[in-house]
């Protein structure tokens, strides 16, 4: 058989592979961008999430008032309904609460806290989970057994229960006086610790697959220490699914924090998150001052929905089976 025809077959079928377009072009051509732009819902969710995050970030700059500076609020301003209602005051677009604080500003500042705690928890869970997963998968043996047993036991319980439990224990250990100082750390800890298991399991599974591959064997032959191999070589390859989990988890973390705050064991009223605001307003729902709880509620709902949609889309876009 002759090989003269190889040249031609290369130009015919291989032409596309020879040219490597720039990164922007590759993204524009990719399946992910395609599915993103094809779904108006996803684009709206992304836009909403970005808007919320930016407004939370710049809250001090764009909020009409600072609702938590005692100097600027006056009890005379309390219980104003939203500006478009009869008794409303144009200064307070969405009305005021029982202490005279502007609801709109409270929402902006509250979103800050909600997002901050949410992100911090996810990052905490990620770090703990990925590390434990790496250790369990790579070292195996009793380390693996112990970590997985703990994971199994924890998985029997829903996250909220675990968060509540850790919260309660931390409270008891810190004592009532010093609790206020560490409340944020406790929140991040309790929410983060209730989520680490998913990361650990996924990473462990990926590690078990990767550990048999040749590049790991080669690294071991060269004599690299296990820790180096784990973090420098195996880790980058198992991060893909982790990212998807983290995005989906963000919505859950935000909701968990809101729930804990609503239940009264989360962020205190002095620096309220959206959940705390809802709790405060709940007392006034029946007496007719509905805006104190409904507007933060809507804000939380929209934020959770948007992040969830984004996470859903990301999971579908990265799932090869559904393409």
């Amino acid at each position, binding site marked *: 058989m002759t090989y003269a025809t190889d040249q031609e077959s290369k130009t015919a079928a291989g032409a596309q592979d020879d040219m490597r377009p720039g990164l922007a072009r590759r993204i524009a051509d990719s399946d992910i961008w395609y599915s993103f732009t094809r779904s108006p819902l996803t684009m709206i969710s992304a836009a909403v999430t970005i808007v919320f995050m930016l407004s939370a970030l710049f809250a001090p700059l764009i909020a009409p008032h600072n609702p938590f500076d005692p100097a600027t609020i006056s009890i005379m301003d309390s219980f104003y309904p939203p500006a478009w209602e009869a008794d409303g005051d144009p200064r307070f677009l969405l009305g005021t609460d029982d202490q005279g604080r502007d609801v709109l500003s409270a929402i902006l500042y509250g979103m800050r806290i909600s997002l901050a705690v949410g992100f911090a928890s996810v990052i905490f869970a990620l770090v703990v989970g990925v590390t434990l997963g790496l250790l369990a998968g790579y070292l195996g043996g009793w380390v693996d057994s112990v970590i997985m*047993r703990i994971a*199994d*036991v924890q998985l*029997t*319980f*829903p996250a*909220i*229960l675990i968060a*509540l*439990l850790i*919260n*309660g*224990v931390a*409270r*008891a*250990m810190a004592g*009532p006086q010093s609790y206020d100082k560490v409340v944020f750390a406790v929140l991040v800890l309790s929410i983060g610790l209730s989520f680490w298991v998913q990361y650990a399991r996924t990473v462990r599974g990926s590690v078990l697959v990767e550990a048999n591959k040749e590049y790991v064997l080669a690294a071991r032959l060269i004599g690299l220490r296990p820790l180096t191999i784990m973090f420098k070589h195996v880790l980058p390859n198992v991060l893909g699914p982790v990212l998807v989990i983290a995005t989906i988890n963000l*919505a859950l973390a935000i*909701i968990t924090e*809101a*729930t804990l705050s*609503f*239940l*009264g*064991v989360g962020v205190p009223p002095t620096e309220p998150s959206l*959940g705390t605001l*809802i709790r405060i307003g*709940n007392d006034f*729902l*029946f007496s007719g001052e*509905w805006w104190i*709880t*409904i507007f933060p*509620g809507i804000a*939380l*709902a929209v934020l*959770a*929905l948007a992040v*969830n*949609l984004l996470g*859903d889309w990301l999971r579908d876009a990265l799932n090869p089976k559904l393409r």
Partner: protein
Amino acid sequence: MIAFAIRRLFQALGVMIVVALISFMMFRFVGDPVNQLVGVDTSPAQREALRQALGLNDPVLLQFARFVAKAAQFDFGISYQFKQPVASLIASRLPATLELSFMSALFALAVGVPMGVYTGLYRNTLLARAFLAISLIGVSLPTFLIGILLIFIVSVNLGWLPSFGRGDVVSIGGVWTTGLLTKSGLQSLVLPSITLGLFQMTLIMRLVRGEMMEVLRTDYIKFARARGLSRRAINFGHALKNTLVPVITITGLQLGSIIAFAVITETVFQWPGMGLLFLQAVQNVDIPIMAAYLLLIAFLFVVINFIVDLLYVAVDPRIRLDGAAR
């Protein structure tokens, strides 16, 4: 099959022991049990005597054994807040929570499964899209928010249903109180059940839908079509049965989750159940209640998991008959 059951039993026991350990450590070492029980003006000598009487100076292992023995007899000590035995406190609140959880699970199944089947079969109709939109909301909104919104719309604005408490309850045999036999009891159950069950309903719906779509892609469905079987035989005979097997077992597991999530719903609706009790315990650092609640929930979960595992084996012939062959 027997070997399988015994193995699972041991696993269950293992989980219980670990939980008991954690519960015990909380009970004993978090905060000072004696200081919680006595007033401010009790003398140190009296505290020491109390410490001795409670056996707090004995070796840790002995205390743990005592703890486990007492727990097995449902003696969980005295609540710090209410100064009453924890066991009787929990027992009085248990029926409320269990009834609520059961109704929620019923709601979740009765609505979730048909919705899931429909959206699995008919992917693009308007109704399917509406269902999917509802499921998205159910999954994204926090439970308490759903409760508040329901209260706002149905109770405050429309005034159709009550928004707190259980209504009138009927006592059965002195052990159980039920709200199912009174009109106000039933009315009070509606909003909390929907709130608690909505999340589970969307979960079930998505699960059924996903499973249905997976099953419809399998080779045996393709072969069934190639054999000329009717659409009804394929969709409801083959596909549905294969879909429901994993679904039933997973929803069984969700029942435990519902019981735990009741904490939130009970708070929103001021439902006098175990969850509310637990929350107050967390807020007021009432360790005995927290420890007892933890043990009880773990026990419930473990029992439910065990039953579900047995159910799974009974329903899937591959596992059942393989086990017997070995």
